[in-house]
């Protein structure tokens, strides 16, 4: 495996272009990459499409990008904790595709795994059927859900080795391992970078082959 380039958060955020699609793993800020998000807020790069479980809080986590009006649209499962997202959605400044959390992660996994889509029963019989492709298999109705790809994923991991192999911390793992697979460029913000071989190969969650850059987290 190649030794990963270690860059700073500012350089990493500078790679993002206006209009890019970014996956931001985070669950109410836990598992989000704070230095990378702050650096992206700093750039002011706008018109972004973000893919996330939830938009966190108005002043913390992913929500900072929303509050800073850098987000044009999002695919997410929850915005209830972020009044900033609610306002922009209500005013029509922010487009939202609401996706059940499990369906969202499977669509991302499909992208990273080379699948053309998945069939899921979640939400059948509800309003989310509107405008959706429905497929009947053996008498049961399913949504045919397509993959979700991104230009970037900002990962938050605990440790990396120099090859970019990653381990996480507790529930900060959440969507990180799956989102790491589905972007053109995956950048991981980590607490510590160790030599290859220092992480037990049985314990590594994300193989470094999914990772493109490492950023060392600063408090």
């Amino acid at each position, binding site marked *: 495996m190649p030794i990963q380039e270690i860059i700073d958060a500012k350089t990493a955020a500078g790679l993002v272009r206006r209009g890019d699609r970014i996956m931001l793993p985070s*669950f*109410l800020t*836990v*598992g989000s990459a704070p230095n990378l998000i702050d650096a992206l807020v700093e750039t002011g790069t706008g018109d972004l499409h973000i893919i996330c*479980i*939830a938009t966190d809080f108005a002043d913390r986590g992913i929500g900072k990008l929303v509050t800073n009006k850098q987000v044009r649209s999002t695919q*997410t*499962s*929850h*915005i*209830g*904790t972020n009044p900033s997202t*609610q306002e922009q*959605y*209500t005013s029509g400044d922010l487009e*939202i595709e*609401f996706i*059940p*959390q*499990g*369906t969202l*992660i*499977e669509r991302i*996994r499909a992208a990273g795994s080379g699948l053309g889509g998945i069939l*899921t*029963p*979640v*939400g*059948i*019989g*509800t*309003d*989310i059927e509107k405008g959706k492709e429905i497929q009947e298999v053996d008498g049961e109705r399913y949504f045919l859900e397509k993959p979700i790809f991104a230009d970037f994923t900002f990962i938050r991991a605990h440790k990396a080795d120099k090859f970019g192999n990653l381990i*996480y*911390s*507790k*529930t*900060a*793992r*959440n*969507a*990180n*391992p*799956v989102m790491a697979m589905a972007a053109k460029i995956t950048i991981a913000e980590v607490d510590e970078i160790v030599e290859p071989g220092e992480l037990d190969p049985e314990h590594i*969650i994300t193989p470094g082959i999914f990772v493109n850059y490492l950023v060392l987290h600063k408090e």
Partner: protein
Amino acid sequence: MTAPDSTIIARRIARELKDGNVVNLGIGMPTLVSNFVPENVHITIQAENGIVGIGPIPEEGKEHRDLINAGGGFITETPGCVYTDTALSFAIIRGGHLDMTVLGALQVDREGSIANWIIPGKFVPGMGGAMDLCAGAGKVVAALKHVDKKGNSKILKKCTLPLTAYRKLNLIVTDMAFIEVTDEGLVLREIAEWTTLEEVVKCTEANLIIPDTIGSFS
């Protein structure tokens, strides 16, 4: 008698738990169920953000910034707990590996449908993991107050809010009644001690099937 506090709902639901059950408890009132698990019943609590085996709330000062439940509250590990990513977490949920999920609700109806994710034009939080939980859990339990602040029934003939799940409920537990959802309709199994059959029927918009024997809970 006056209405008890809403822990009556959590207490009654807790009695449904069987030893060894794996459950997911929604945000708010459902979370309280874990406080009333009967003695000799050991359950495993899963949360959709990626843990199987949630322990109690940590002592003050002992919180770990990376250890939360799906409501964002700090939690602790139990011995034998497991961390998972979101994909495995929802594989567990959607794949039928939970024995029970307990969800708060804005409305439920006689068909066993539930609405809890959106009040159009007013509040649009999103469904989070609620649709997945309803689709996959072995037993889906709605936990809610029987009537709203104006005294209107939340147990309707047909939900008026957009659904979270269509015909997925197994049980409806309120501060007034314990209701089983069957193919024939809603069967009133138990009445809260503080109220009466007459009151329950009056406060329920949906038709209730009233069996000969009705239990009580408190």
